[in-house]
Structures are given as structure tokens and as C-alpha cells.
């Protein structure tokens, strides 16, 4: 691809109309780009802003002067013509000056400009045709001589008005960066070293790289003589070299082509490569793209380069007494250092920024300070302040600042596995950066969004969509590749292929090593450890985690160290190496206590509990559970709390009293004097507590905890106590579906025969009063009849055909389940237009069915629940469905259901037939099961 030079044409517009046309034609004839004010069209900028901007982008300045000095704007002291001239000098653009001769009425102020210009190149012309020819010739000559505008800048030899000093050449910068090989090594060899290449050397380069050179040199006409396989060669082989083909012997040509290629690269958005080439030929443009180059290096993960370039930017800003600019680069350095696992460098950069006098950057400095504090110490206060800071940015209408802070928040949230929060922050930032057209910001926000979504269920489609939307130009970088490896490793683990996951992690680690990005290495070492752990390679996994822990410790990355140490404990616990695991769990908890990573702190305490249990230290284990649970409750980490409660309730080696006492401690409740009082306390605490838990944990936690608590209750008191607790629970709970689930699972926690039929009826009446979707009508014999509605829409009626406590309980649980999952159930049916809207269900035990209907129609003994279906599904009034429960059917967990509850089985069987009934078989059996399974099992798990 050829890059055109931008040629800025400065003259009076009306007076020099013909000259301007001539200049335009001349420039176009040699395929460069003329910049003429009149060609710029209508712009929302004032003219001065316009030509300032255009002059900045120009490579060459052509001044054409006749007689007029030009128009002076009301608020200006000099004309636009002189302003352009002065700006040209200031920017160091190479000038080609053309002066009409003769010009008897030349304004003296113009004469002064011409005299100044004569220090460089002034050519006289007499008519536009001559001018056109001269411009074309001069430009060609300029290019042929090896265009180097820095020479012209030096020729100007005079500091521009209003500036204190000219920018020094980049080569004199105090610390030149250590630059890596270019993206295309061939370009580096070809241009920077200016050394001839042998065919063999060229042949060793890949087609892709050769192709890049060919594209880059495409505008150079006959300089390229052949493209043959992997070989690019030029004319003019130098006889003094032994190789058959040689390249670019003339240093001036090298400079010229280097400039051209650099400009092409810059146009292509490859600022870092362009910077490298500009810097090689000491071209001032290098300085102009320094900031962009630094950003690109940072973005693509070339940490060392980026930090060096940022340092150069800082030093330059300091020399030019621009503290604001210096601070901005220092903050970038700090963030980059932190990202790369160099907390010490981050702290130093921050300190340097703080020492500079840049009041406008105070908030930004604070922002990065908070980030550094959070990352290196896990300081929760700092993280909260970061959120406040974002709010204050938003309050001030600084959307960009808020988005920048949101990016930092999303990084932190991902690190501490608060993925929903991370997603929200990243989404916000993405929206703002997209709106503002900030590609770099958008890029970072997009990656954080993908990372946070990837850790959440049900986001696959969005992740795929977002991944596809990553800018192609940015996609092909090592950092993005590492990112993709990271994602792939996670997915492969989820898909049960830890071997492939380990490979991806290793690839990402290698990229991290190549880029010098410690953080990247650590993250992927953890992934590798996880994959190895999946493979049962405990020691290898532990070794990876230990490496991470040690490196993180050295880099002052406390959260990473804590997470890795916790994983060591987890892995060793899984291998039942409790004694080895315990110190790691304790160390991890110590590292993470009072940090923002409370989830990992909780995990560490749980690992400690597991180790202690393994070592038979029950009281120490319960103490660890208590702190883990209390922390989860205090911080409203419902999912963690649910897991802890379920885990705690399932500890068979711990007495029910100890389980309930620990649960009460987690709730912050006073200890109870006896098991029954403990049970009452638990009910008082558990209602609101359980309501916050995720659906899949809520019911299970309720059932298991109540079951353990009730198992301690004396048999003689069971009926009275259970009835009282049920009443208390009904009184405590709200009428919401989630509380209905808690209540329903409470019913599974005890044997139905603990309550008499009278007590069941009393409970049913209170239940129906509490939950508006349920209507209860007792049969005279004590059996129950239920009507289940949802938003006044009838779902089903459910009748009990027996009159025993067990069948009453089953019917009640079925009605509660139908009411509690009604909405999800209807959603699960899909958008099919329902031919019917109602279902009539009867619950009966097999024994009663045999008595009432006959053995010949009864299901085989051992069929847990059998649901009859309507005889003719096309009938508008089919007979009711009968759910026939086997004689040994129980509502609670059943071994034959792998621990799932009988209630969930009953509910799913009935729902399945109801759905068939409602849909008249329009949906296939397998599709129905897929739809209904996820609806039912979380309710009565």
C-alpha cells in the first residue's frame, strides 16, 4: 500500500486562485495529496482551527505569495497567511516557497514573510503554468533526495514565536527504549539496519512477512523487480557484495524509504512499528506518534516497550513543563505496571505523579491510587472509594472519567470473581467508549466484558457475538491470542477436556513470558493448575499454584497470592491430604481476611473447615464454618451462604445440635438452651435468610437444615413443635414464590406422620391464607382439595383421594410446587398457544387406587409415581390425571432417586403430563423433559 504525502498549500485564496489550481494539479500529478482550504468543504470548525489541524497533518508546506498579505480576522493581529507561515516554522514542516516576480505592489508585511522564508527554499515564478512545473519538479526532487523533514526543521533555525524551546530531537532523549523486533522482522532488517539481504536470508522469512514488505513497497515502482516465491529483490545489485541480490545500498535511499514505509505503517494504525522506523532515521514524526506508540504497545501487551515509551513521554512532558501530560503518562505507567504484576513500579509511578503539580489530575491520581491499593493489599475500603469516585465522575457529567473508573472496577471484580458486577461495569464502560469513539477504551471494555460473561452461565451466545466483534486489526496480537487461550481453557475444562485446557493454558503462559507480562503468566498458571487438578495430577497442580503464590508474593499481589494459596488447600483437600492442606488454607485465609476478595476468604475458611474435619477437629471446623458463613451473610454473598448451609447441614460427623448451633451463629442469633428452642430460633432467622439464596440452593438448604434440627426434637414433642414451627414459618414468610419454596421444603424436612390429619388441615388453611395463588378446601374426611392459580389464571386443581397424613402432605407439596414454579412452568411450555388452560390432578396411593379402581389398572409395584393421562387427549373434558404414588413413596430424599426428593419426582411427573395435556402433544417428549427438568428440580432439590 502506498502512502501519499500531505502537501499543504498556503496562499491568499482569491488573489492566487490560478496558482492554487496549478499547485493542486502539480501535486496530484505525482500522486500526492494536496491540502487546500477551499477543498475541505463545510466544517464545524472555525478556519484557524481548520488550517491548524491540517498543517499538523501535513508532510510538506508549499507557500505561494503574490502581493497581498491576506485578511486579518477581527480578533487577530496577523493574517491567516502569516499565521500559517509561523505555524509551519513552529511545526518544522519542510517548506517549498514560490514567489511571484515581479510584484510591484507587494505588501511589506508579506515581504517580511518572504524574507524569512528565503532562509530555506524560495523559487520565483511568473505564471501559474511555470509554477505548476516547478512544484512538480521540486517535490519529485525533494522525495528523490530522501525526504527528511527534520533537516528542514533544523534549517528553520529559530524558535517559533511564543515557545520557549524547540522540541529536541528524539535521539537525544535520555533513555532510549529497548525496542523488540518489529512485527515484521523483515521490515526491521530491510530498513533499519540498511544491510543487504542474501537470498537465503530472504528465503528464511515467511511468506506472510515477505508479503508485508511487498505491500509496503508496492508504491515504489521498479525498485522491486521480482516476487518469486519467498524472494524479494531490488535492482542495482551492489558489486562489492557477494550475494546475488542485494538491497538498498544508498543510505539516503534507506532514509527515504524508511520514512515512506513508516508513514504507511502509521496510516495503517501500526503506530509502534512506525515509531520505531521514524526513530531510526531521527525523524521528528517519531515524537509526534510517541504517545500513540506507547498506547499500542500497552494494548498489545508489549509491556517493556510500552513502559519505556511511556517513560519517554513523561520525560518529554516534564522537559516541556507540561505536568498534566506527564501525570497522564505516569498514571498509564502505573496501571500498566500493575496489570503486568509490577506493583512496585506502579507505586513508584504513582508517587512521581503525585509529586507533580497537576491539580486537574487529582481525581485520576486518586483513582489509580485506589486501584493500586486494592490490588496490592486487597483493601476493601479502597474498592468502595473507587465506586464512589465513579459516582462523582458521573455526577459531574464526566462520562469518560466514569467509564475509565468502571474499567478499573471491572478488572477488580473479575479478579475477585464478582462477575455480575464486573459485567455491569464493563457494559457501562463499553457503551461510553463506543459513544465517544475511543477505540482503545472500547477494546479494553470489550475484553473485560467477555471475560466476566464467560464465567457466567447462559452467556455463550453473547460471548460469541462479542468475541466476533473484536476489531480484526486488534485481533491478531499475542495478547489477544493469550486471552483467547484463557477463554478456551475455561471452556475446555467445562466440556470435560482438561488435557486440551492445559495445552491452551501453556500456550498462554508462553505468550505471557514472551511479552514479559507477569500477570498474564500467573492467571494462566492458575488455569493450568486447575486443568492438572482435573486430570488428577495433584502434585503438578499444586506446583503450579505454588509458583503463582511465590511470584505473586514477590510482586506484592496479595489477592493473587491468596487465591493461589487457597487453591493449593483445595487441591490437597480433594486428595484427602488434610494435614498438608490445613496450613495453606490458614495462610490463604490470613492473606485474604479483610480484603475485597471475600469470596476467596470464605473459600479459604471452608477449606480450613474441611481440613479440620478430615483431621477430626470438629470444633475448629465449625468455627471456620461459622466465620465463613457469617462473612457470606454479612456481605450478602447468597450463593456462598447457601453452599455453606447445605454443606454444614450435610455433615454427618457433626451432631444435629452442633449443626443448628453453628447455623444460628451464622445468623447472629443467640445460642438456644435446648434443641427445640434452637429449632424455634432457626425458624425465626431462616425465613428471611433463605429467601435471599439462589433458587437452586434455597429449598435444599431449608430442607436439610430443618431436617437436622427436627432430628434433635423429642418424638413426643414432634407433632406440637412441628405444627408450631410451621405456623411460625407461615407467619414469618412473605407470600412470594421464593418463600413458598422455603415453606414447601420445610414440609419435606419431617415425616408426614409427625402431624395428624387435623394438624395438616390447620396448616393447609394457614398456607392458603398466606399464599394468594392457593385455594384450599377440605373434604369432610380430612383430605384436601387445592386450586392453584397464577395471576388469577387457573393452573390446576389438585385433589387428594386418600385421607392419610402422608397423602395429604404429598398433595399439599404438589400444590405448593405448582404454585411456586407456576410462572417458570408456563414459560417452559414456550410460546405455544395452549389449546387448554387447566389441568385436574388427583393424588392417590397405589393401595387406595387398587381399592377404588382395581389392581388390574394399577401401575406395577415399585413404580414410584405413575401419572395416568387423559384417555382421549383431544377431548375438551378429559378425565382427571391421577398421580399414583407407590406405597413406599416419601416426599423427602430417596436413595432410588440418587438423593433427589420424592416431591421433585412427583412434581415433575405431574408437570410433564400436565404439559402434554395442555399442549395436546404438540411438543415432543424429549423437548418437554428438557424444558421442565430445570424448572422442577431446583424447587424440591
Amino acid at each position: 500500500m502506498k502512502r501519499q504525502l500531505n502537501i499543504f498549500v498556503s496562499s491568499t485564496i482569491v488573489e492566487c486562485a490560478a496558482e492554487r489550481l496549478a499547485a493542486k494539479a502539480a501535486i496530484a500529478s505525482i500522486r500526492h495529496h494536496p491540502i487546500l482550504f477551499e477543498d475541505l468543504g463545510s466544517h464545524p470548525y472555525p478556519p484557524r482551527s481548520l488550517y491548524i489541524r491540517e498543517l499538523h497533518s501535513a508532510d510538506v508546506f508549499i507557500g505561494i505569495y503574490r502581493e497581498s498579505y491576506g485578511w486579518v480576522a477581527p480578533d487577530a493581529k496577523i493574517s491567516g497567511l502569516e499565521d500559517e507561515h509561523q505555524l509551519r516554522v513552529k511545526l518544522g514542516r519542510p517548506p517549498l516557497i514560490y514567489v511571484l516576480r515581479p510584484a510591484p505592489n507587494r505588501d511589506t508585511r508579506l515581504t517580511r514573510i518572504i524574507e524569512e522564508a528565503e532562509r530555506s527554499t524560495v523559487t520565483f515564478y511568473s505564471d501559474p503554468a511555470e509554477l505548476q512545473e516547478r512544484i512538480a519538479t521540486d517535490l519529485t526532487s525533494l522525495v528523490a533526495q530522501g525526504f527528511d523533514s527534520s533537516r528542514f526543521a533544523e534549517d528553520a533555525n529559530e524558535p517559533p514565536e511564543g515557545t520557549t524551546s524547540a522540541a529536541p530531537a528524539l535521539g537525544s532523549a535520555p533513555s532510549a527504549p529497548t525496542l523488540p523486533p518489529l512485527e515484521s522482522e523483515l521490515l526491521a532488517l530491510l530498513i533499519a539496519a540498511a544491510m543487504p539481504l542474501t537470498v537465503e536470508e530472504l528465503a528464511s522469512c515467511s511468506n506472510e512477512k515477505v508479503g508485508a514488505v511487498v505491500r509496503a513497497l508496492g508504491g515504489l515502482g521498479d525498485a522491486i523487480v521480482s516476487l518469486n516465491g519467498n524472494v524479494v529483490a531490488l535492482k542495482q545489485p551492489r558489486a562489492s557484495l557477494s550475494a546475488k541480490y542485494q538491497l538498498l545500498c544508498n543510505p539516503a535511499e534507506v532514509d527515504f524509504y524508511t520514512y515512506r514505509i513508516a508513514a504507511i505503517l502509521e496510516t495503517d494504525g501500526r503506530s509502534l512499528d512506525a515509531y520505531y522506523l521514524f526513530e531510526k532515521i531521527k525523524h521528528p514524526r517519531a515524537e509526534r506518534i510517541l504517545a500513540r506508540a506507547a498506547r499500542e504497545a500497552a494494548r498489545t501487551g508489549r509491556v517493556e516497550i510500552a513502559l519505556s515509551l511511556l517513560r519517554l513521554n513523561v520525560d518529554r512532558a516534564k522537559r516541556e513543563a507540561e505536568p498534566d501530560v506527564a501525570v497522564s503518562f505516569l498514571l498509564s505507567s502505573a496501571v500498566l505496571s500493575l496489570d503486568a504484576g509490577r506493583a512496585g513500579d506502579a507505586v513508584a509511578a504513582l508517587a512521581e505523579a503525585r509529586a507533580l503539580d497537576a491539580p486537574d489530575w487529582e481525581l485520576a491520581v486518586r483513582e489509580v491510587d485506589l486501584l493500586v491499593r486494592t490490588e496490592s493489599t486487597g483493601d476493601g475500603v479502597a474498592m468502595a472509594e473507587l465506586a464512589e469516585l465513579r459516582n462523582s465522575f458521573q455526577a459531574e457529567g464526566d462520562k469518560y472519567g466514569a467509564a475509565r473508573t468502571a474499567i478499573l472496577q471491572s478488572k477488580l471484580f473479575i479478579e475477585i470473581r464478582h462477575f455480575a458486577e464486573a459485567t455491569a461495569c464493563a457494559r457501562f464502560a463499553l457503551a461510553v467508549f463506543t459513544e465517544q469513539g475511543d477505540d482503545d477504551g472500547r477494546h479494553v471494555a470489550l475484553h473485560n466484558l467477555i471475560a466476566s460473561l464467560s464465567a457466567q452461565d447462559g452467556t455463550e451466545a453473547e460471548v460469541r457475538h462479542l468475541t466476533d466483534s473484536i476489531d480484526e486489526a486488534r485481533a491478531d496480537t499475542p495478547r489477544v491470542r493469550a486471552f483467547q487461550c484463557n477463554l478456551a481453557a475455561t471452556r475446555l475444562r467445562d466440556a470435560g477436556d482438561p488435557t486440551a485446557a492445559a495445552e491452551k493454558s501453556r500456550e498462554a503462559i508462553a505468550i505471557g513470558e514472551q511479552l514479559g507480562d507477569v500477570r498474564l503468566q500467573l492467571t494462566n498458571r492458575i488455569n493450568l493448575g486447575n486443568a492438572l487438578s482435573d486430570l488428577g495430577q495433584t502434585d503438578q497442580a499444586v506446583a503450579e499454584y505454588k509458583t503463582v503464590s511465590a511470584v505473586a508474593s514477590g510482586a506484592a499481589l496479595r489477592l493473587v497470592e491468596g487465591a493461589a494459596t487457597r487453591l493449593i488447600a483445595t487441591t490437597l483437600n480433594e486428595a484427602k491430604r488434610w494435614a498438608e492442606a490445613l496450613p495453606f488454607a490458614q495462610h490463604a485465609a490470613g492473606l485474604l481476611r479483610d480484603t475485597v476478595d471475600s469470596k476467596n476468604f470464605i473459600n479459604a475458611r471452608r477449606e480450613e473447615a474441611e481440613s479440620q474435619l478430615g483431621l477430626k477437629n470438629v470444633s475448629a471446623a465449625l468455627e471456620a464454618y461459622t466465620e465463613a458463613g457469617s462473612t457470606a451473610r454479612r456481605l450478602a454473598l447468597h450463593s456462598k451462604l447457601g453452599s455453606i448451609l447445605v454443606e454444614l447441614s450435610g455433615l454427618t460427623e457433626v451432631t444435629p445440635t452442633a449443626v443448628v448451633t453453628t447455623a444460628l451463629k451464622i445468623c447472629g442469633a443467640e445460642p438456644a438452651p435446648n434443641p427445640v428452642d434452637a429449632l424455634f430460633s432457626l425458624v425465626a432467622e431462616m425465613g428471611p435468610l433463605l429467601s435471599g439464596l439462589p433458587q437452586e440452593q434455597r429449598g435444599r438448604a431449608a430442607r436439610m437444615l430443618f431436617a437436622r434440627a427436627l432430628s434433635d426434637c423429642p418424638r413426643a414433642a414432634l407433632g406440637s413443635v412441628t405444627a408450631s414451627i410451621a405456623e411460625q414459618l407461615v407467619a414469618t414468610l412473605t407470600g412470594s414464590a421464593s418463600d413458598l419454596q422455603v415453606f414447601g421444603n420445610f414440609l419435606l424436612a419431617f415425616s408426614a406422620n409427625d402431624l395428624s390429619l387435623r394438624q395438616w388441615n390447620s396448616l393447609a388453611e394457614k398456607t392458603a391464607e398466606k399464599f394468594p395463588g392457593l385455594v384450599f378446601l377440605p373434604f369432610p374426611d380430612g383430605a384436601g382439595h387445592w386450586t392453584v392459580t397464577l395471576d388469577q389464571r387457573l393452573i390446576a386443581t389438585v385433589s387428594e383421594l386418600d385421607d392419610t397424613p402422608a397423602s395429604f402432605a404429598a398433595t399439599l407439596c404438589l400444590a405448593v410446587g405448582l404454585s411456586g414454579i407456576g410462572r417458570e412452568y408456563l414459560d417452559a411450555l414456550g410460546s405455544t398457544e395452549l389449546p387448554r388452560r387447566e389441568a385436574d390432578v388427583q393424588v392417590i396411593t397405589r393401595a387406595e387406587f387398587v381399592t377404588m379402581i382395581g389392581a388390574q389398572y394399577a401401575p406395577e409395584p415399585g413404580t414410584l409415581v405413575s401419572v395416568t393421562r387423559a384417555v382421549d387427549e383431544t377431548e375438551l373434558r378429559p378425565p382427571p390425571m391421577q398421580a399414583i404414588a407407590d406405597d413406599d413413596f416419601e416426599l423427602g430424599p430417596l436413595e432410588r432417586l440418587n438423593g433427589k426428593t420424592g416431591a421433585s419426582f412427583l412434581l415433575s411427573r405431574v408437570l410433564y403430563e400436565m404439559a402434554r395435556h395442555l399442549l395436546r402433544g404438540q411438543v415432543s417428549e424429549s423437548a418437554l423433559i428438557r424444558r421442565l427438568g430445570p424448572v422442577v428440580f431446583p424447587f424440591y432439590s
Partner: protein
Amino acid sequence: MTGRSKSKPAAARGKTPAHDERRQPGPLVHVTSGGIGVDYSARTLQILLSVGGTSELGDADVVGLAYGLQQHDELGMLPTVSLVCRNVTQAKKAWDAFETWQTETDGDAVSLSWFFYAEGYYQLVIGAEPERLRFRLRGFDDSDDDLIMSGYFKKRFDRISKPTEEFRAYLRKRYSPYLFSACTESMTPIGMPILKFHGVEADVNSLLPGSPERIILGLETAPERGSKRNVNGAKWRAKMVKTRFPVTLARLSRDEIAPLLQEASALGFQTWQIEQAAANLALSNELSPGRPHYASLQRSTAVEAIAAGIRGRREAADSSDFRSLLTLECLLKQLVLDANALLKSIGQQTTSSPAQAVIKLRKAGLLETGQRDA
């Protein structure tokens, strides 16, 4: 209807009310040649009277109340309150009754209440716990409203001893099982101790005016009808419609019926009226198959048939659909018929005009809730 045929549960089997006074065959039914209107606010009131146990106790010559501790097989050492009786025969009769109550429900069927007076004495009140009493006498049937009347045994004790104070404190706990027994003056047990989990203790001064406890203690006189469940007519109507016609109510919420309901509402009819009229159309569809306003019922048996229809009604989903009767004409006519049943019950003139029905009910103060004066 479910078509089920089950016997009564054991707990309620064979039990009959001690006294059954049917005051009103309710609901309010107004039979005309043009159809029958039914208002569900009226209900059959049955007086459930229990005098057993407490009356014998009154003859048992209770001379004291002993507090102590007694071993329970499973619950360990429990506080015990024991009535010291001189008339062992009567005490035994009372205990036999209490044990029967316990067997049919549980130990808390015998209610024990301690009422403490500021003057330094207390009264022990022993009676039948109302809900358990109702269950013993009526079983699970909730289709009638009941007037529960039972006797109480009251005994004043002039001194509030330390054991009494301690027992009172014990009762305040959430979980306070104890044994209730009787014995002779020589501490010989009479009958088996009854395991209880609930007991009432209260300062008399804290009892609210009009509370049953104040009536029992003789601090206030009972209202004319005595203690009853006291469900007002509007609530009773709502309960009957909700529990007997839930499927009908759900169908009313369907979109296609909305315009019909809106038209009735526009005439001034209230939601409770419309729901009740729909319930009557649904019931009519069964008692007079396919015909509105109970058109085929005989005048002589209509009232009983409708009462029985409501009493035994269990609506099942997918059951018979009455919507063919649910036209605006039928609905308005049933609304007027039902309004007339209510108007007639308070001695008002009936009407054949929907607008007049609304006006008359409004004038009578019945439109908003349909609540008649007790």
C-alpha cells in the same frame, strides 16, 4: 366434582354435636317464577356445645393446685400442675373426658389459663380448646358456621406462691411442655397425666375489653349469642365463593369475559355481586343442566338442593363449562335475582330492574360489601 367416596376420618368419625340448633337453612334463597336468587352471606349456624369434663370437674371439689416435677418417659423431668381433688369419682369422670379429648386430638385439647389479679390472687380456668373442640364435634367440614359453647371450670387461688410464679415464667418460654394431672389430697394420682405444650398466663388488667377471657372471668357479660366464630356475612360469602367456586372465578378473569363484566360494572354492580352471580350460574348449570337461574328446580326443594349443592361443591379444573350461560342477559338477571334475595332478607321490596336493584341495595347500605347488620 371429584366423584370420590370416602368415609370420615377417624378423628371425627362418629362424633355428633352435643347440641345442634339449626337456626337458618341459609344461604338466602329467593324463589320467584322467573328464577331463583341466592345470596351466600347467610349460613347455617350450628351451636357446638361441650359441657363434659369441666362440669364434672366442678363437682370434684378441687381444693388446691400442686406444682412439682415429674418424669416423662421421653421428655425427661417436666413441670407438673396437679389439681388436688376431694371427690375422686367426679375427678375421675372429668379425667376420663379429658383423656378422650386427648386421644381424639392432643393434650392441648384441654385448655389451661392462669389469670393473675393485681390484688395478689389468681384464677385457674380449665376448658375445651375451641378449635380442637370444633374438630372433635364437626370433623373437617367447614361448610357451616359454628357457634361454639363450652363450659369452663374456674378456681380462685388466694395466694400467688413462688412455685406459681416460677411456673408462670416457664409458660412464657417458646417451648414449655408440662404435665397436667389430678390427685387426691394424699397425692394419689387420678387418671393419667396429660402432656401439654401450651398454657395461657396473663394479668387480668392486660385483657382487652370485650375479649373472651374477660367474659369467661365474669368481668363482662357475654353478647346475646354467646361466644362464636363471629364471621360476618360478607366474609362468609367471600369464603364460600372463593373455596366453592375457584375455577369459576378463574374463568371470569379470561379476556373474552371482560367486556361482559365491564358492562355489569358500568351499571353499578360490585365485584362481589358479579362473582356471586357467576357462581350461581355455574351451580345452576349443574342443578338445572344447561339452564340459568335454577330454572328447573322445584319450588319446594329448591332451597335444600341449592344449599346441598353449595355445601358439597368441589370445583375441578377442566370440569363442566358454564360459559354458555354467561351472557349479559343471564348475568344481569341473576344479579337482580341475587339482589332481591338480599333485599327480601331485610324486608325490602324486590325489583326486576338492574338499575333499581343497585339503587335499592345502595339505599340499604348493602351495595359496597353486601354486609347485612348482624
